[in-house]
């Protein structure tokens, strides 16, 4: 770990000023950040600990827009009774992520901003365009079983691992951002960036900006939603493939559908293709599988991860059937 100066501001305003210093990084729950620093994958000169800031941990589900404070803990959101009832996909995505110890520390804002678990990025030595731009991508001719199939480029095929971000992509979600000088709201779809030539850039967040909240437009489709996650083991593992599906039903017919995919893309990935197949369809297993097929039609598998195409087709189908029973 490289040396740094530690500061713990008492107010958001102070934190925004500290975060604007060159070389500063914010620390929330620390469950990603401390590990990245220990591996020299992040080497901030100044660590601005925002974990204790007041007023940023509330979860408010009462209005036409749901608000999740950036510092709300994953465990608290996962066990929020109203969220479990009205937006099960969101609660499940958190419940199925990490472990209770991690969920107690990790924040909703930090979760959105977690970085890839690609071993070539994490090991600190392999060629990796994300870690050392221009050094190459070891996954292209290496072990790529866990890598992404969507939103990738010739420079990087690393996977976005977050479950919460994936589930949020199935809703009208926005990210509220503050800097010392301004505030802005960015739709989640534009918050993460798919890889182009510069896979080191993963979000539109600028130096000095702090995420203060995540908002979701309230929808009746929330009740008809689910998050399905398939892993190498039953618990405490990242998704091989996951899918969030949110439906509104008119009898057996799908009135509206939202579908997002995890474990398979460089960012939270919404599948308009699957949504188009589901909308207006009578929801049977066959219709679910057709939606899954549509979702993965544009996939770009590598050498060891083509299994995710068939697995993903079935995960989408399963999630669609579960969602329809709730809708």
């Amino acid at each position, binding site marked *: 770990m490289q*040396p740094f100066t*530690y500061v713990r501001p008492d107010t958001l305003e102070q934190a925004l000023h500290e975060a604007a210093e060159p070389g500063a990084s914010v620390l929330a729950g620390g469950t990603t950040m*401390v590990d990245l620093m220990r591996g020299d994958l992040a080497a901030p000169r100044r660590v601005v*600990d925002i974990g204790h800031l007041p007023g940023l941990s509330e979860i408010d589900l009462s209005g036409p827009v749901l608000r999740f404070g950036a510092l709300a803990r994953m465990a608290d959101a996962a066990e929020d009774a109203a969220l479990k009832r009205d937006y099960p996909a969101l609660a499940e995505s958190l419940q199925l992520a990490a*472990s209770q*110890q991690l969920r*107690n*520390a990790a924040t909703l804002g930090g979760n959105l901003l977690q970085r890839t678990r690609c071993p070539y990025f994490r090991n600190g030595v392999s060629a990796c365009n994300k870690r050392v731009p221009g050094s190459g991508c070891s996954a292209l001719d290496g072990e790529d079983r866990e890598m992404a199939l969507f939103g990738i480029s010739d420079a990087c095929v690393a996977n976005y691992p977050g479950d919460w971000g994936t589930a949020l992509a199935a809703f009208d979600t926005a990210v509220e951002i503050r800097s010392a000088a301004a505030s802005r709201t960015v739709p989640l779809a534009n918050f993460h960036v798919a890889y182009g030539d510069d896979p080191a850039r993963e979000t539109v967040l600028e130096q000095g900006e702090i995420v203060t909240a995540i908002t979701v437009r309230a929808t009746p489709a929330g009740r008809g939603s689910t998050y399905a996650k398939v892993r190498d083991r039953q618990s405490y593992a990242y998704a091989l493939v996951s899918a969030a599906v949110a439906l509104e039903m008119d009898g057996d017919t799908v009135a509206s559908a939202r579908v997002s995919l995890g474990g398979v893309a460089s960012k939270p990935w919404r599948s308009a293709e699957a949504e188009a197949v589901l909308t207006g369809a009578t929801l049977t297993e066959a219709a679910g599988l057709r939606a899954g097929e549509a979702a993965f039609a544009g996939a770009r598998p590598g050498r060891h991860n083509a299994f995710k195409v068939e697995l993903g087709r079935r995960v989408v189908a399963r999630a669609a059937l579960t969602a329809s029973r709730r809708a």
Partner: protein
Amino acid sequence: MQTLDVTLDVNGRTHSLQLDPRTTLLDALREHLGLTGTKVGCNHGTCGSCTVHVDGRRQLACLVLAASAAGRAVRTIEGLAAADGTPHPMQAAFVAHDALQCGYCTPGQIMSAVSCVEEGHARTDDEIREYMSGNLCRCAAYPNIVAAIADVARAA
């Protein structure tokens, strides 16, 4: 390089330390306070052997900076037994069920298990397995760990 004055509240006692900001809570406990009951396993947040309670909730001491823990109440395995030395019911249950082999993961398992019951996440064996999945045991004492926790949960 910055030296930080960090005041830690550990097992009800206050400690004033001068620390390199890079010091994790895990290192502060073990290297600075001599509380070596909390174990270093992976040091990456993956194994659970460093589990402690921070403000009453289980967390991983290897992923928390000591400076971030200042002002929080930290409880470690050393703080679990009663003042007269009587083991905590979870410690007694681990002994009764032989819920360990080498014992390396055990302090983390027990701290996690105490929370698991307190949280109300120990109603069935499946629920115990799910909520204890953050604690790995290389000796695979899992069946006996689940039995010990189920016992304490029934008594609670």
